[in-house]
C-alpha cells in the first residue's frame, strides 16, 4: 500500500527524527526516504561540543580532586571550600555536556543521524551513577560512540570496551589476573587483587550476543580473564598514558582461553580483541542488535520480518552500521502509519523544543524535570540503558509530570505565534482532527500549545 507523501514526510521527521522543527516536514516531502538516507555519512554523528576537554583531561581533574580531598581529610577539614568547589566544577562539566547534547538535538537539521547516535549511546550505556563516570559520560559519547555510528560495529565495540569511562563504570580497570606479577605485587602490599567479571559479562549479555546466546558462567569467567590488563593509566604515569587506555601486561592472566567453544591462544591485548571480533560477527549479535533497533524505531513488539531483514543485512555486510541504517529507513515495515512508540522524557522534551523552534538554555531547570519523569540526565538505571517500553514511561505519575512541565513550557516558549500553525508544522499529516479542533478552541495560546504537546499523537512517534 502506498502511503501518501504528506504522511511519509511527517513520519520521517517524527519517528526517525526527533520531532519536526518548522518547515522540516515540508522539506522532507519531496523524498522522505532520501531525506533520511542523506543524513548517513561515514564520518559518524555530529559532536555536541567542538572544544570540550577530553576524557583523559577529565580523568586527571577527577584524580586531582580526589588527592585534594584526601589531603583536606588528613588536615581535618574534609569539607573545605576548595574541595567543594572542585566537586562542583566537575559536576558542572557534566551539566554542560548534557545541555550541549540537548541543544544539538533541539536544533539539528539531521535529526535521524542524532537519534541513531543516541540509540548507540544507550546501547553502550555508561551511567553517571558513580561520580568518576559522571564526568566522563559526555566524553565517552564523543570519543567512543559518535565517530563510529555509521562504521563497523566491531570498531564501536572495541572503542567502547577500551574507553576509560566504560573501564571504570563496569569495574574493568581494576581487574587483575590472579596468576600475574601484579597480583603477587599487590599481595605483598597486603592488598587483595583479582578478577572482576562485570564488563566481560555485560559485553556478552548486553552489547553483543545477548543473554539467550547459550553461554555459561565459565565463558564469562574466561572472557574476563582474557580482558585482564585492559586498564587506565594513573595520575603518576606519562602524559600519553595518564587517563587513557593502557594494556598492563603484568596484570594480564597468561594462557589460552576457551570461550563459547572456541580456543583463543595467549596474545596479550590481542586475545580479548580476537574474542570481540568473534562476538561482533556472531549471528546472535546480529539478531540482538536487529531486534533492539526495530524495537526502538518501530514498535515495542517489532515486526519479525523487519528484524529478519536487519539481521540479514548485518551479517551480509559484516556489521556495517551505515548499511544497516539505510536498510532500516528503506524497509516498508518501518513506515507503518500507526505511531506505536511512546516518547521517552528526553524525546518528549527535545521534540517540544523543536516544535516551538527554541533551544534549551540552562541545565538547572531541565535536570529536575527529567528526574521527575524518570530519566535523570546521563543516569540510566543500569548497564542495560533506558528501557523502551511504553508502559514504563506512561505511568500515571509521569503523565502528570509531563502535563505540569508542558504547561510551564508553553507559558514561556510560544511568544505570540499561532498554536494552530505550530501544530500543523510539528505533526503535519499526523495531526488528528480531534486534536486540531481542541487546539483551535483553546482559550489562550499557551493552552493551545499545551494541548499539542500533551496530545496522544505528539506523545508518540
Amino acid at each position, binding site marked *: 500500500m502506498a502511503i501518501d507523501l504528506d504522511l511519509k514526510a511527517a513520519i520521517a521527521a517524527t519517528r526517525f527524527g526527533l520531532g519536526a522543527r518548522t518547515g522540516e516536514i515540508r522539506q522532507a516531502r519531496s523524498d522522505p526516504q532520501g531525506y533520511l538516507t542523506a543524513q548517513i555519512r561515514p564520518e559518524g554523528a555530529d559532536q555536541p561540543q567542538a572544544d570540550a576537554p577530553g576524557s583523559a583531561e577529565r580523568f586527571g581533574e577527577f584524580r586531582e580532586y580526589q588527592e585534594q580531598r584526601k589531603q583536606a581529610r588528613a588536615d581535618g577539614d574534609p569539607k573545605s571550600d576548595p574541595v567543594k568547589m572542585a566537586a562542583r566544577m566537575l559536576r558542572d562539566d557534566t551539566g554542560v555536556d548534557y545541555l550541549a547534547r540537548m541543544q544539538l538535538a533541539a536544533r539539528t537539521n539531521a535529526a535521524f543521524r542524532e537519534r541513531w547516535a543516541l540509540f548507540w549511546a544507550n546501547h553502550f550505556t555508561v551511567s553517571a551513577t558513580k561520580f568518576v563516570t559522571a564526568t566522563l559520560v559526555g566524553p565517552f559519547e564523543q570519543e567512543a560512540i559518535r565517530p563510529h555510528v555509521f562504521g563497523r560495529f566491531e570498531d564501536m565495540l572495541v572503542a567502547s570496551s577500551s574507553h576509560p569511562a566504560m573501564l571504570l563504570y563496569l*569495574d574493568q580497570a*581494576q581487574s587483575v589476573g590472579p596468576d600475574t606479577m601484579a597480583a603477587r605485587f599487590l599481595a605483598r602490599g597486603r592488598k*587483595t587483587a583479582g578478577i572482576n567479571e562485570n564488563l566481560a559479562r555485560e559485553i556478552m549479555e548486553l552489547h553483543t550476543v545477548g543473554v539467550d546466546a547459550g553461554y555459561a558462567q565459565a565463558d564469562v569467567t574466561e572472557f574476563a580473564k582474557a580482558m585482564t590488563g585492559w586498564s587506565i593509566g594513573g595520575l603518576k604515569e606519562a602524559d600519553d598514558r595518564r587517563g587513557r587506555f593502557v594494556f598492563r601486561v603484568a596484570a594480564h592472566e597468561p594462557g589460552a582461553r576457551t570461550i563459547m567453544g572456541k580456543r583463543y591462544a595467549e596474545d596479550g591485548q590481542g586475545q580479548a580483541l580476537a574474542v570481540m571480533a568473534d562476538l561482533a560477527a556472531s549471528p546472535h549479535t546480529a539478531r540482538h542488535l536487529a531486534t533492539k533497533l526495530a524495537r526502538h524505531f518501530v514498535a515495542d513488539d517489532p515486526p519479525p520480518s523487519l528484524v529478519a531483514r536487519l539481521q540479514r543485512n548485518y551479517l551480509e555486510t559484516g556489521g556495517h552500521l551505515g548499511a544497516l541504517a539505510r536498510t532500516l529507513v528503506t524497509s516498508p515495515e518501518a513506515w507503518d502509519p500507526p505511531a506505536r512508540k511512546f516518547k521517552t522524557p528526553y524525546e518528549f522534551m527535545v521534540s517540544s523544543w523543536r516544535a516551538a523552534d527554541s533551544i534549551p538554555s540552562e541545565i538547572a531547570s531541565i535536570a529536575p524535570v527529567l528526574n*521527575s519523569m524518570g530519566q535523570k540526565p546521563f543516569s540510566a538505571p543500569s548497564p542495560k540503558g533506558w528501557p523502551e517500553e511504553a508502559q514504563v514511561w506512561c505511568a500515571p505519575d509521569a503523565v502528570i509530570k509531563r502535563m505540569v*512541565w508542558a504547561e510551564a513550557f508553553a507559558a514561556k516558549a510560544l511568544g505570540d505565534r499561532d498554536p494552530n500553525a505550530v501544530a500543523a508544522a510539528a505533526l503535519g499529516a499526523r495531526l488528528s482532527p480531534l486534536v486540531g479542533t481542541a487546539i483551535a478552541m483553546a482559550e489562550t495560546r499557551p493552552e493551545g500549545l499545551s494541548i499539542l504537546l500533551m496530545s496522544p499523537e505528539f506523545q508518540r512517534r
Partner: protein
Amino acid sequence: MTVLPNLSRRGALLGALGLGVTIEFLGSRAYAAVDGAIARKKLVVIVCRGGLDGLSLSPPVGDPNYQALRGAIAIAPFGDAGGALKLDGAFGLHPAMSATHALAQKGEARIAPAVATPDRARSHFEAQDVLENGATAAYGVDSGWLNRALSAMGPAGRVKAISVGPTAPLILRGPIEAASWSPGGGADRDHRLPGILADLYAHDPLLGPALASGLNTEAMAKVATGEAAALTPADAGGLTGEGAPGGTGGAAMMEAQAGSGGAALRPVLRQGLPQARKLGATLAGFMTQANGKQVAAVSIDGFDTHANQGAAQGQLATRLAYVDAFLDGLADGLGPAWGDTVVVMATEFGRTARVNGTGGTDHGTASTALLLGGALKKGGIVGDWPTLAQNRLFEDRDTAPTMDMRGLFKGVLRDHLGVERAALDRSVFPDSAAVAPVAGVV
C-alpha cells in the same frame, strides 16, 4: 465524525472526573463491608534492584566460614564495634539496620536467608523480570505477579494498589490498573487542561487510564502528606453535586490536588535519611486514609556492589541505612494498621560468598528476603540455612538456595490476603503447583 459534540462535552467531562472518584469511594466501601478482616490487611513488596548482598544484610556471623570468605567486607561479630545486630546465635542484621532490628526484637521482623527465584542466569535484567513476573523464565509473561494476585482477589478496583517511583515496575503491571506516585508534582497550574486531555484521551488505552489514575493519586497525596483535609466519601460526593457549567466540580477537585513543588522535583532516592523516613510515612498515609491502598510496590536501586562494597560503613551500609529509615517511617506511619501489615523485601539474586579482588562481590544466587509487619507470626529464620561450608556453596561460589522465592510470596498471599491455592499455582505464579506456599510466616 463527532468531533464537535465530543468537545462540547468538556464541561461534563470535568464533572465526570469528580464522578469517577465518587464511584470509586462508594465501590470500595461496599466491598469493605463484605470482606471484613481481609479488607484491612496490607501488603508492601519492596524490590531491591542490583542484587542485594544477603550476607551483609543479615550476616551469618555465627557461620564458621563467614569471616574467612568475606575478608575485609565481613561484618564483625556481635558486640564488636560495628558488629552485627543479633537475631539469634548465627544471624544478625547489618549495623545500619537498627530500626529493623528493634522490630525484630518484638517479633515483627524476620529473615529468610537463602531464597532465590527460579532463574540461574545471574543477569540482573532476566532475574528481575523473573522476580517480578512470577514465571520461571524472563520472557513470555509481560504482567507482574502482584497484579495477577489482585485479579485473583476479585473484580478490578476491589483491592487498590500503588507503586512508588516515577516509572511503573513490572511486578505491578497488568490488567488491574494500579496507581503510581513519586514525591513532588502537583497539577495546579491550570484547571482546564486535565479536563481537555481527559477528553482527548477518551479512546487512548495508554494515556487515558494513566491520566485518570495520576490525577486521583495527586489528590490522595495531598491527604497523605497532610497538606489537605481528608477527602471523605461525602466530600467526593460534593464534587459532583456542584456540576455547574464550566466544570466547577473539576476545578474543586483540582484544588484538592494542588501540589507543593510544581515542576521543581527531586529524585526520591539518595536524599538522605529524613527524606527516606518521610517517604515511608507518606506511603503509610496512602494506605491508611479512607479508601486507601491495600497493596504497594516499591523499588529501591543501587545494590550492585561489584567494588568497594564496604562493611559496617561504606557504599552498601549507606544504602541499607536508607532502606532502614524508609521501613521505620512506614512502620511508624501505619500506626495501629501495622498490626495488619506484612512487608516483604526481596532482590533478584544474592552475591558471591567470597569477596572479589576489588573489595566487592559479583552476581550470585540465593540472598536474604526480609519480612516485616505486625501481622507476622513470631519465629526464627524462615527456611533452612545451607551454611557457607565449601561443599555447600552453589557452584562453589554462591549461597545455595533452599527456598523458592515464589513459595515465600505464595505463603504471604495465602495466609495474609486469603488468595486461593489454585489461583496461586496457576495464574499468579504460572505452572507452580510443585512449589508449596511457605507456611508459618503469617
